[in-house]
């Protein structure tokens, strides 16, 4: 029996991030855990893309392997009718999608995913340790994104700068992904 709530305070629901306390990388590729973000998995028909873009405040890209950013939100093309929309902090994405008034499917996956930020001259080499995609700037320019594989797990990869990537991975796979990225970062510095 709980006699009173006085002893609990804010500790009762302390939030622990999936990769809390992880650190790694090498002189060639730095690994950082991304701050918490809001994410939705969005599916819609081609004719509703315009209305959803307007409601979300970011244009949903329709060209394969591209992304767009505006107002602190990033929309990543995953498939012909599928996008991953990421907002810094708590951005009200679900409500914004609902306000579009058009038929769509939006699932809040904020806590399903976590993200690892890989940066440095060896960032692409570190990711290529487990990812088969061509990450040269010609094939995968800044802003390019793709769902792909990394070792044994599926990731969504976004190039945020010439030498920086965001690796979106399911939280239960994040331990493995971080470990393999550490190995890749070490190899990239040799």
């Amino acid at each position, binding site marked *: 029996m709980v006699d009173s709530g006085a002893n609990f305070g804010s500790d009762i629901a302390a939030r622990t991030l999936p990769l809390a306390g992880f650190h790694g990388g090498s002189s060639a590729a730095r690994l950082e855990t991304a701050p918490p973000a809001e994410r939705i998995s969005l599916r819609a028909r081609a004719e509703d893309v315009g209305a959803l873009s307007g409601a979300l405040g970011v244009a949903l890209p329709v060209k*394969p*392997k591209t992304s767009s950013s505006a107002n602190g939100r990033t929309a990543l093309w*995953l*498939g*012909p009718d*599928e996008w991953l929309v990421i907002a810094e902090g708590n951005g009200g994405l679900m409500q914004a999608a609902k306000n579009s008034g058009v038929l769509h499917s939006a699932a809040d996956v904020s806590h399903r995913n976590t993200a690892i930020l890989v940066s440095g001259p060896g960032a692409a080499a570190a990711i290529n340790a487990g990812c*088969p*995609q061509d990450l040269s700037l010609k094939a995968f320019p800044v802003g390019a994104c*793709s*769902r*792909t*594989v990394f070792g044994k797990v*599926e990731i969504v990869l976004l190039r945020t700068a010439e030498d920086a990537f965001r690796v979106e991975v399911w939280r239960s796979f994040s331990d493995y992904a971080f470990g393999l990225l550490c190995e890749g970062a070490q190899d990239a510095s040799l």
Partner: protein
Amino acid sequence: MLLIHCPYCEEDRSELEFRWAGEAHIARPENISAISDEEFAEFFFLRNNEKGLTYERWRHIHGCGRFFNAARDTVSDRFLMTYKAGMPKQPVPETGASEKTVETYEATEGDAR
């Protein structure tokens, strides 16, 4: 590593991102409750398993998630072309594609007797 052209992503991707999904262009019967057991077995279980040119469904499961169709040579393991799901069976382009890239028993040992 095989590279497979995804008609939705419009580029070649590693085979690691794909899954095989069976023979292509198998139409589900219009009125499936009316067909006989033999016809159902033919539709549901029996596959041609052809040697050489075969039409298959593939899925870009770790990419765009889409099913598409592919023409593949099961002898050379070469993808001859891919095209979007829902399109009718496409003719294989004539590119002198009859290369024998795999040494078969018949080719190498056939005259040994």
